[in-house]
């Protein structure tokens, strides 16, 4: 029941970190690393790399070839912006080159090419499946598994029959792994509270897994709790996913971490907290340092905050989040806990905060999604 590390800018050091070794796979990001760099980084990981399921995500989402390291990859050509994307032959060539690149970097799996469409209609998913089949026919003899990249527009997935229809089309293929991308229109760190959309997403995951597809939900954040509860075998996250989500502007974001604020991942509130709010909750006793001890990075952050040195802890925040993610994934997969239990506990913590009379400095961080998520689990 693995968690995957969704690679981003300067993420390789986290892959080799001992405390984060529970991640069983990585999803390569051609935007952030060229193929030569990937080979070099994987070589540097040594035996650890051989334990990983290495998924190559071609990142065809937006037809632009000049972003980051993309031009270094053979599957991305300069005619990307002007090509007839409806031409099957053009995509067949992309699949051929993608496979060659996958073999070159040592990928064990490849997510099929998929663009973000103008409309998410059945004909689009039909095309998605055909593209995945093309890749599978070439990759399977090379012992490289294919994942059907399935991009789903979250605001529409709650409409009646949409989840079942998508699942029916996507499971038409013999390719039995799905790389599921929930495409959203929310701002970073704002959690979705649309119960119908969340219930639809849960229904989709359930339907895919029931039909025998192994689902990897890409670009996950705290919502991993919902996706695991729905039965997703695999979930992926990266260090920036306590900040960003898969939104229209995602690939336009500058790929650097310099302006990123540190965030504390709070398991008990099921939220991310800024430093001021961490200090506030510590003072009123709603962060329990002894409980936080279970996460080694939480311990380090609290120790740092205790010194009042003003030192930045962005890097520790990333690690604390990644550790939380992989631990919770493991706990849920092994039945130690459930999303309902985690969220019910979080609901009580938010109630305790309200009773305390304290107000978080970050106004939008109000926990209102917790009940929405619980209800989505109930109604799906």
């Amino acid at each position, binding site marked *: 029941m693995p968690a995957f590390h969704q690679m981003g800018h300067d993420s390789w050091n986290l892959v080799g970190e001992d405390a984060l070794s529970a991640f069983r796979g990585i999803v390569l990001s051609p935007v952030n690393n060229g193929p030569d760099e990937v080979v070099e980084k994987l070589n540097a990981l040594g035996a650890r790399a051989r334990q990983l399921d290495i998924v190559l995500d071609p990142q065809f989402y937006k037809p632009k070839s000049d972003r980051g390291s993309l031009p270094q990859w053979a599957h991305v050509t300069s005619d990307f912006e002007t090509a007839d994307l409806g031409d099957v032959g053009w995509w067949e060539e992309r699949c051929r080159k993608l496979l060659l690149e996958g073999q070159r970097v040592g990928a064990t799996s490849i997510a099929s090419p998929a663009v973000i469409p103008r409309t998410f209609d*059945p*004909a689009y*998913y*039909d095309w998605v499946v055909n593209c995945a089949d093309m890749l599978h026919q070439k990759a399977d003899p090379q012992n490289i598994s294919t994942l059907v990249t399935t991009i789903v527009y979250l605001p529409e997935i709650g409409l009646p*029959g949409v989840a*079942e*229809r998508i*699942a*029916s*089309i*996507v*499971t*038409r293929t*013999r390719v*039995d792994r799905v790389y599921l991308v929930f495409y959203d229109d929310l701002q970073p760190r704002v959690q979705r509270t649309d119960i119908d959309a969340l219930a639809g997403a849960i229904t989709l995951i359930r*339907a*895919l897994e*029931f*039909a*025998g597809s192994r689902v990897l939900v890409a670009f996950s954040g705290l919502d991993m709790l919902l996706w695991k509860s729905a039965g997703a075998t695999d979930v992926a996250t990266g260090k920036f996913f306590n900040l960003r989500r898969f939104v229209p502007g995602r690939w336009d974001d500058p790929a650097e971490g310099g302006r990123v604020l540190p965030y504390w991942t709070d398991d008990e509130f099921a939220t991310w907290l800024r430093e001021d709010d961490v200090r506030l909750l510590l003072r009123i006793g709603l962060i329990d340092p002894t409980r936080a001890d279970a996460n080694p990075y939480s311990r380090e952050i609290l120790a740092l905050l205790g010194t009042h040195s003003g030192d930045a802890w962005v890097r520790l925040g990333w690690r604390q989040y990644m550790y939380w993610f992989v631990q919770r994934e493991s706990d849920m997969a092994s039945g130690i806990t459930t999303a309902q239990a985690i969220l019910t506990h979080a609901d009580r913590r938010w109630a305790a905060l309200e009773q305390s009379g304290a107000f978080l400095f970050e106004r939008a961080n109000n926990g209102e999604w917790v009940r929405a998520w619980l209800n989505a689990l109930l109604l799906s």
Partner: protein
Amino acid sequence: MPIATDSAVVAEVVCKQRNFSLIDELGVGAHKRVYLIEQNGLRFALKIAPITPSLKPRFEREAAALRGCAHPSVAILHDTFALMSGGQEFWISIEEYLADGTLAARFARGKVDGPLVRAMGLALANALDHLRNRNLVHRDIKPANIMFRTGDEVVLTDFGIVRMLDAPTLTHDFLPQGPGTPLYASAEQLLNEATLIDWRTDQFGLALVLAECAIGRHPFAPENDLALAIMRVAKRQAVPAKSCEQLVSAGFGALVRALAPWPAQRYRNPKDLIDALTAV
């Protein structure tokens, strides 16, 4: 000249040209007439249909589909060709003669027993696997299109509306209903959802036929109202509880999943269906 007379003339012409003896007329379908012919002691079915611009591509697809098949439970196609007679072009196909009639005829004579239902299910699920490997969807599985070679040797026939998944669809998206016989059609056929058509559409049709044989009536019509049964399927309702109970007690509970409203809820692969039918 009426088509029947036309066809009889054409049958005689074909027999004369190809050294067959015309034995008898076997029946008539929506578009074609079928004759029993014989050559060197071997019997064949001669099918004759007037060609129209809209039907010709379907005839060609049926022929192409069957030519690519070689399975004991798929009817054997020996020859196809076009023939001009009296200013009208006809589509001619010579197929194996299936002497022991249709499942529809057997069903009309009484309930089909459980072991035969299971044997038919396994043989035809194997045939669906064969078709799937060739990207073919039959789309019209019903008792009239299931025949017996000798004894209980079951054969799937009439690929007239076969869909080749790797070829452009011949169905118009704007039509309210896709090809198929409504009483045995899945929701995706009734609603003309072309992107949802795959082997699981045939799985639904086969399961419906088997369930009908197993419990003696259409599984979506506990009250024997066939119009209501079609409406239930089109509305993507589950198999009525009474039918589920009867299927389970008859040892065919495995068919309930095959009759699920959405393809994703049915068996993913033919082998899964075969395993489920074998396990009971």
